[in-house]
């Protein structure tokens, strides 16, 4: 009877996904179910209850529920947050509006600067000043605060953000202002910058605090409704919310600083790739997630995801966007998914994306009035996607519409439809190759040392071609690739990242100061967990230092393993920095090294899923073969490909390309010369043929 039910629900823009693992704790055997319903904006929690009902999951039987939601990013991009008032340091009222003054679209003289989230009349100042060491230069004067509160109330402000200069070094003024504000106006939602980040750069920190305040009431209400709805359904398990740092956290913690959920969707996919890599013995992974409108990629080295704090929303070639300084998994996202539209510019150049056909009208093949060719249409036209099994057989592909759309592209290029479709796939692949290079080659990593894990609806369709281009030897397509993000969530730990700006020369004299800063940060992390009833022994801590050569600005993060920082370890730490730096930038300097910040990762295991390997039955892959069809592989031309039914594949089965695997949520393209095999967890491993083998 010892069965554990683990559920992950992922609320996306269009669909709410659910993944259930029901595990027999004695044998480790698990049954897996997935379900999908429409997302119910703006009451997203209804969709969660719907999808649980659809899958027949009784809330009272669930032991562990991981939840990811787009509620924060939607509130930001759709501007549905609340009216925010900002309290800041005297002389810096306009920081939020001045921003950094950059103009990415630099030949465009009609550039429009992004509108600040708080208008000038709601940005107010208090006298008081710290310096960059955290010493008080002038005391904080709270006398104007009651007047500011009265004005904010009159203006209908619902949330207050407080951000003072150098609060990363000493938060005392922010703490005092926050305490007074909460006394003067207990019912307002309030947050100060040091509660979110302890890093310098006042515009970025102010923006982060303002955006957090902007979404806080919305996110808090949502989480409360979710929590209450689950309680009403007698849910008694642990509820964990996915974060942007690849970990989960409790509802209470997330409710206080909900901005940390901003990129939780992509983060869970990247984490899934890291966990899958660990499971199958591939610590070095390129994670690729291709959805309907975008492709996202991230690099995992030695089973470690890279977490950064320089994230921006709405930042494009045409807009400076808005910075959010919270720990977010390091990823590159491009406007290139299955629904991306192919077009020919005024001067005869073929382009794919970033505009997407979205869910409505969708690709031409949906037959919902879409007239523009998308990547999906090109894949259908080339026979890569089965026109008779489109969207798992749920949609009848409108091939007339596809033909018209692709011919229109071809006419503008002066080529036939086949050539146009091949062009679309090649350009889309090239866009994705460049994105994958940004996370690998651009950071000094050779993609040939990595395994590509491809998921999302479109990952498996393009992964093998990208791997060939990059020299990657192996592609892994996970079982249930289309709900892989939900699986990643289920594999997450409770995780908190603390980043602190600390500017000291890296030398033996400062070893004690560095150790003290790490010690305090770690102690704060432990104390927070302790307050939630989690024992210190359950907390795993990892340290990273951020270093640079003196006079530089940008830093390189280096893991610091091996215990406390002591005077005699400084040389080894410095050597590790030089090595990391040189790999990334091709040279090293004899210049003195500065430490600019520290990063502490605190993790607690919360009983995540343990996967069990199934044994091979010995049945040949031929038993899963549905037939043969002509597939256009673009660069390798037309080939007769064996078609396999994904549902029929079993551990141990192996087959050679050219082949196609059709699953309900995805299509796996195996190129000529490549070999595929199914592992004990149902993942498909594709061994990529090198150039000679493909001829």
């Amino acid at each position, binding site marked *: 009877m010892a069965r554990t039910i683990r559920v992950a629900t992922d609320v996306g823009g269009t669909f709410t996904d659910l993944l259930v693992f029901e595990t027999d704790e004695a044998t480790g055997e698990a049954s897996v179910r997935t379900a999908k319903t429409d997302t119910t904006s703006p009451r997203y929690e209804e969709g969660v209850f719907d999808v649980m009902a659809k899958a027949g999951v009784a809330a009272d039987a669930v032991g562990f529920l991981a939840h990811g939601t787009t509620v924060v990013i939607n509130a930001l991009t759709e501007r549905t947050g609340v009216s925010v008032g900002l309290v800041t340091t005297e*002389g*810096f009222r*306009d*920081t939020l*509006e*001045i*921003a*950094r*003054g*950059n*103009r*990415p*679209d*630099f*030949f*465009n*003289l*009609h*550039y*429009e*600067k992004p509108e600040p989230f708080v*208008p*000038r*009349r709601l940005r107010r100042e208090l006298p008081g000043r710290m*310096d*960059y060491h955290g010493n008080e*230069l002038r005391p904080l004067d709270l006398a104007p605060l009651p007047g500011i509160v009265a004005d904010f109330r009159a203006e209908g402000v619902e949330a207050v953000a407080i951000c003072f*200069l*150098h609060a990363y070094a000493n938060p005392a003024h922010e703490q005092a202002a926050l305490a007074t504000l909460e006394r003067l106006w207990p019912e307002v939602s309030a947050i100060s910058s040091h509660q979110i980040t302890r890093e*310098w750069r*006042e515009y970025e920190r102010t923006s982060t605090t303002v955006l957090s305040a902007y979404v806080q009431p919305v996110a808090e209400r949502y989480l409360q409704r979710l929590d209450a709805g689950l309680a009403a359904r007698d849910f008694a398990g642990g509820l964990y919310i996915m974060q942007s740092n690849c970990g989960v956290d409790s509802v209470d913690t997330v409710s206080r600083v909900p901005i940390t959920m901003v990129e939780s969707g992509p983060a869970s996919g990247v984490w899934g790739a890291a966990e899958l890599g660990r499971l199958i013995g591939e610590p070095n992974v390129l994670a690729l997630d291709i959805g309907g409108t975008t492709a996202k990629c991230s690099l995992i080295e030695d089973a470690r995801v890279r977490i950064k704090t320089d994230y921006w929303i709405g930042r494009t070639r045409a807009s400076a966007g808005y910075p959010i300084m919270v720990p977010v998994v390091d990823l590159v996202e491009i406007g290139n998914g299955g629904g991306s539209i192919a077009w020919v*510019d*005024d*001067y*005869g*150049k*073929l382009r794919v994306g970033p505009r997407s056909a979205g869910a409505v009208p969708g690709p031409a093949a949906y037959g919902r009035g879409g007239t523009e060719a998308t990547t999906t249409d090109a894949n259908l036209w080339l026979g890569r996607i089965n026109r008779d099994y489109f969207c798992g057989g749920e949609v009848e592909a409108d091939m007339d519409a596809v033909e018209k759309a692709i011919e229109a592209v071809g006419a503008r*290029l002066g080529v036939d439809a086949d050539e146009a479709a*091949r*062009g679309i796939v*090649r*350009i889309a692949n*090239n*866009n994705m190759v*460049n994105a994958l*290079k*940004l996370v690998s*080659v*651009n950071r000094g990593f050779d993609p040939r040392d990595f395994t590509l894990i491809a998921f999302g609806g479109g990952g498996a369709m393009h992964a093998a071609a990208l791997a060939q281009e990059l020299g990657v030897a192996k592609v892994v397509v996970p079982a249930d690739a289309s709900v892989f993000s939900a699986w990643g969530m289920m594999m997450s730990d409770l995780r908190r990242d603390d980043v602190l700006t600390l*500017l000291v020369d890296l030398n033996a004299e400062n070893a004690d100061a560095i150790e003290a800063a790490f010690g305090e940060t770690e102690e704060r992390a432990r104390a927070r967990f302790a307050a939630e009833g989690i024992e210190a022994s359950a907390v795993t801590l990892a340290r990273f230092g951020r270093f640079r*050569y003196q*006079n*530089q*600005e*940008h830093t390189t993060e280096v893991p610091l393993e091996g215990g406390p920082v002591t005077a005699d370890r400084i040389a080894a730490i410095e050597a590790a920095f030089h090595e990391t730096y040189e790999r990334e*930038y*091709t*040279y090293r*300097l004899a*210049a003195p090294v500065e430490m600019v910040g520290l990063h502490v990762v605190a993790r607690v295991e919360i009983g995540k899923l343990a996967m069990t390997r199934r044994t091979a039955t010995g049945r040949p892959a031929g038993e899963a073969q549905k037939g043969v069809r002509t597939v256009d592989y673009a660069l390798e031309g037309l080939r007769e490909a064996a078609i396999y039914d994904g549902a029929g594949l079993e551990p141990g089965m192996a087959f050679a390309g050219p082949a196609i695997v059709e699953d309900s949520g995805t299509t796996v393209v195996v190129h000529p010369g490549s070999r595929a095999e199914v592992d004990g967890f149902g993942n498909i491993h594709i061994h990529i043929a090198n150039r000679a083998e493909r001829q």
Partner: protein
Amino acid sequence: MTAKTAKTTMTNDPITLEIIQNSLQSAADEMFAAMKKTAMSSIIYEVLDMGTGITDAKGEIACSGAGIPAFVGVLDKAVTVIVEKFAAPGAVEPGDVFVTNDPYYGGVTHLNDIVVVMPVFAEGRIIAWTANIAHNSDVGGMAPGSLTGEATEIFQEGLRLPAVKMIARGEPIQPVLEIITVNSRMPDVLEGDVWAAIASVRIGTARLEEIAEKYGAATFEQAMAAFMDYGERVSRTELAKLPRGTFALTEEQDDGQLFNVSITIGEDEFVVDLRDNPDQASGPVNTSRDGVMVAAQMIFKSLTDPYSPCNAGSFRPIRLLTREGSVFHAKEPAPVGFYYEIDLRAYDVMWRCLAQHMPERLAAGHFASVCGTFIGGIHPDTGRQYTIIEPQLGGWGGREGIDGNNAMFCGFHGETFNCPAEINEARNGLYVDQMALNLEPGGEGAFTGGRGIVMDYRVRADDGYLTVGYTRSKHPAWALDGGNEGSPNYVEFIPREGERQRFAFVSGLKTRKDDVIRVVTGNGGGFGDPGRREPERVRRDVSNGLISAERAREVYGVTIDSDDGRTA
């Protein structure tokens, strides 16, 4: 050898060419990212006063890394000089790296900008060049930071590097590197920045060699040529949409000189005539012909298609006429330290000349000065020398339907970031007491000019210095269609003891503890009669504290009952 022969065949496949072109762009971007992350001068890593580029074998620009638009068309000139100078067989070998910083040797700008250039070889020949330009904090000369209004010859502005080899077959030529560093007041920083530039061109070269290896040199070259032809096609198509004719303008400058421009837009030519202009100055307010060519290219690109890729082809329709010995075509050894203000004047006068005839394409004038601000001294906490070299933010002009942007860098800048006060205070020996929008009158209109800024630097120790060179200080940003002109750019120096001073040009002014350097940049020009401004916009300006209720009534004729913006 058959494989190689096969490789050199050209392709007819447009998708392959396009994939190579995309890869060129990502290589230029990668070079840019590498430089930005490794540089030691804040003017490089924050201000991004730098650019990267890829040219063809002859030196025609194929592709640029994002930085500032004023550096897009700079790098080809340096490569061209190197190609000519090292034309002998074997003079250029794989792994070589060249360096120039001299506008009389392809450097275009001023001596602070060091250009590093590296050949790309494939199948035994040069198929391309990678190049990098960045502003270095100090290259010697008569004043710290190398820039001074006192210079009367280029020799006083720093070390001149006349397009020489710095690395031979991958091995640094140590004497050259030592000469470069020993001439700087900040040798460590200079060395770090030069190595960052070398890393950048090496990364670019490696990437291009991989592409050529994969597709073959001939296909690679064909892709580059096709890319430039594409640029030209875009420009010619858009040029045909511009109104034809000859447009002329004369504009008085802050120093009383008159600058003249005449632009003729023809069927397939864009002719900029700057010949009728004053003789070169004795001070460093001159520029090279290449410099004003870059200004003409920028205006042309913005007018035609600002969004498409920008390369040598894009600029083919431009014809520039200058007179050697004039401020816009200085002759050696004229000093050129503040060249950028002169290029910017040429740019702004072209903009203004055309805006009246095509206001749908060009807004009213912006503060139009780099407002280069140089502050130095000893950091009291570390005892180390610090040098700030910063451009400033200012207001942009209004246009029909849209108020101008507040607080952006001038048109010569692009993906440039200002220095955060928190970093400024840690790195430099001063406090930033305020950083606010400039609320001075100016730029009123149906659509207002954006606001400039007011920024106070308070100096923390004695024995510092200040150098600035701002233009548009007497004649502020120009208006369009009946709007009001903007407000001036200037510095107000507020010493702890003594008289306040206001100026736009100063060199090596001594500063002492607790002196305040107040930078004030102009509001942009207004567009349209202020009486036409929608009352709702006026109310919003009042409620946001940008103008008083009284001025709302005076300038816009809108009555508001209190400064809270609640309308009567």
